């Protein structure tokens, strides 16, 4: 299961390139968050999660819930890279009849997809339900749920957070993509969510932080988070929106925009050159 940091970097590079290719062909979609989360997704699927791409419904697999459905491109590209479905299928993103819906939809039958999502703030509750079921049945698998920092403004997140701690769900790890931006601008301008670590710990969670672009840090943090006993854990991953393409890094205008063909070619070259 364990891959070297070099291998993870190389895999992340491929995933980033595929994200850009799929978005450029689709002509719409969420580039910024997808590139920002690529390293976290790579670490999860290639270093942390216990899963089997050839047996997507394996009962003992760890579950990953993508609560922020808008970053579907990073989930899709990572699933394809892991071997759940052919990489070339990524080029059907958002097209009529595709299994790769703009926001994930289970009814379209994509292997490896756990949940239909796209309305923010719902995924943590679903993760709590799955973790409760796992506890009831004494299962070893772990539930991971991925959230945006803007998404934490939804009240339902905090209802779920309270319930996870109340039920001592140490088989649940939430991940916060702390890129500091959302659609209207900086998260601190739209609606301040700080002090974030204090909020989660006040809600009864074990809180971890990591550099969301350092594989060493991501992997070791997730391993520590998973080892938490008696309470749920949250990993606040500090990321950069659009990571990997300097001209868009940190720019919230890239939250929901796809690159043109010309931009895509330039972005891909930068990612290839910058090893």
């Amino acid at each position, binding site marked *: 299961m364990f891959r070297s940091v070099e291998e993870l970097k190389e895999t992340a590079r491929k995933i980033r390139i595929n994200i850009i290719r799929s978005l450029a062909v*689709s*002509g*719409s*979609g969420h580039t910024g968050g997808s590139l920002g989360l690529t390293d976290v997704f790579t670490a999860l699927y290639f270093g942390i999660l216990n899963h089997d791409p050839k047996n997507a419904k394996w009962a003992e697999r760890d579950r990953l819930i993508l609560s922020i*459905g808008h970053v579907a491109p990073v989930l899709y590209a990572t699933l394809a890279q892991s071997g759940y479905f052919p990489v070339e299928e990524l080029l059907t993103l*958002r*097209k*009529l*009849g*595709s299994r*790769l*819906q*703009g*926001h994930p*939809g289970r*009814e*379209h039958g994509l292997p490896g997809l756990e949940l*239909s*999502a*796209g*309305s*923010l*703030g719902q995924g943590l509750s679903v993760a709590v339900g799955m973790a409760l079921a796992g506890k009831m049945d004494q299962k070893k698998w772990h539930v991971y749920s991925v959230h945006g920092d*803007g*998404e934490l*403004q*939804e*009240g339902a997140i905090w209802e779920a957070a309270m319930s996870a701690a109340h039920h001592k769900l140490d088989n649940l790890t939430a991940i916060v993509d702390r890129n500091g931006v*959302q*659609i*209207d601008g900086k998260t601190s*301008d*739209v*609606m301040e969510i700080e002090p974030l670590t204090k909020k989660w710990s006040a809600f009864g969670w074990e809180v971890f932080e990591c550099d969301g672009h350092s594989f060493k840090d991501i992997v070791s943090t997730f391993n520590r988070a998973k080892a938490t006993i008696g309470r749920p854990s949250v990993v606040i991953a500090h990321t950069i929106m659009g990571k990997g393409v300097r001209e868009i890094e940190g720019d919230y205008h890239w939250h929901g925009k796809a690159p043109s063909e010309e931009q895509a070619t330039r972005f891909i070259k930068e990612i290839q050159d910058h090893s």
Partner: protein
Amino acid sequence: MSYQLQNRGNKPTRFGFGEGVLEAAEMNPKVVGIGADITGSVSMNFFAQQFPERFFSMGIAEQNCMGVAAGLALEGKTPVFSTYGVFAALRTTDQIRISVCYNNLHVIIGGAHAGISVGPDGATHQALEDIAVMRVLPNMTVVSPCDATQTKLAAIKAINELNGPVYLRFGREAVPDFTSEGQNFNFGKGQLMKEGKDISIIATGHMVWEALQAAYQLAKEGIDARVINIHTIKPIDEEIIIWAAKETKAIITAEEHQVMGGFGSAVAEVVVKNFPVPMDFVGLNDSFGESGKPEELMEKYGLTSRNMVNRIKNILSSA
């Protein structure tokens, strides 16, 4: 009643909404705006830039936004809260029902990106149940204008003339803008867009334009279709519907929404009670939408003038 029915150019109805809110706010200092992190895409940026001191950013927290709107309205402000229709109407339904409707407060709820023409974002973002849910709430007025010009008028009048809760529905894509600035627009009054005696097409929202195209096509084949625009789904114009039932042999409704419980159902309630005639319904049939180009989805789900023409021929041949 005569309306200019040429397309002056495509324009998203959401721009009409943004312009209308801005214009009303220039006259009326009580107008306040609430933002839930998609200010630009629902065109509330026109207002927010002009009146930053009257615009409150609330983050991605629609239920809170709706409750806050109720509080502002209780204190005499006229709040406008707009987000995608899926969230505006459905995420906040309980807040709308109790805090807004049961208190009968003048809150303007903008349901943006309505219908399947939202396109590639897919099912999660396509509001196809909002009319059904909003129209069953006591005190609520439900408005679904047919183009950008009418959406602008509706926004201005919803702010200036109404007193209770309003759900104002509009779309994302650029669609034909064909009604005149000087039109006679009154809440609760349908508009006769084209006279006809063989069948009535009663449509709402952008589907009014599709209905007109269907009627022009049918005219070439000797079928004389009447086209009625129902921009106010609640309270609905019973008179114009009963008149259509009596004078034409059949009625077909058209909406970018689920047929069940939606606009067609609202028309059918009037028809069945007063003057039953054969009816058919163009809309979504109990399914979610999906990703695709807007025009591909309109085609796949039968929301085109071509499908209307076929359906109309079917009703008339079996009537």
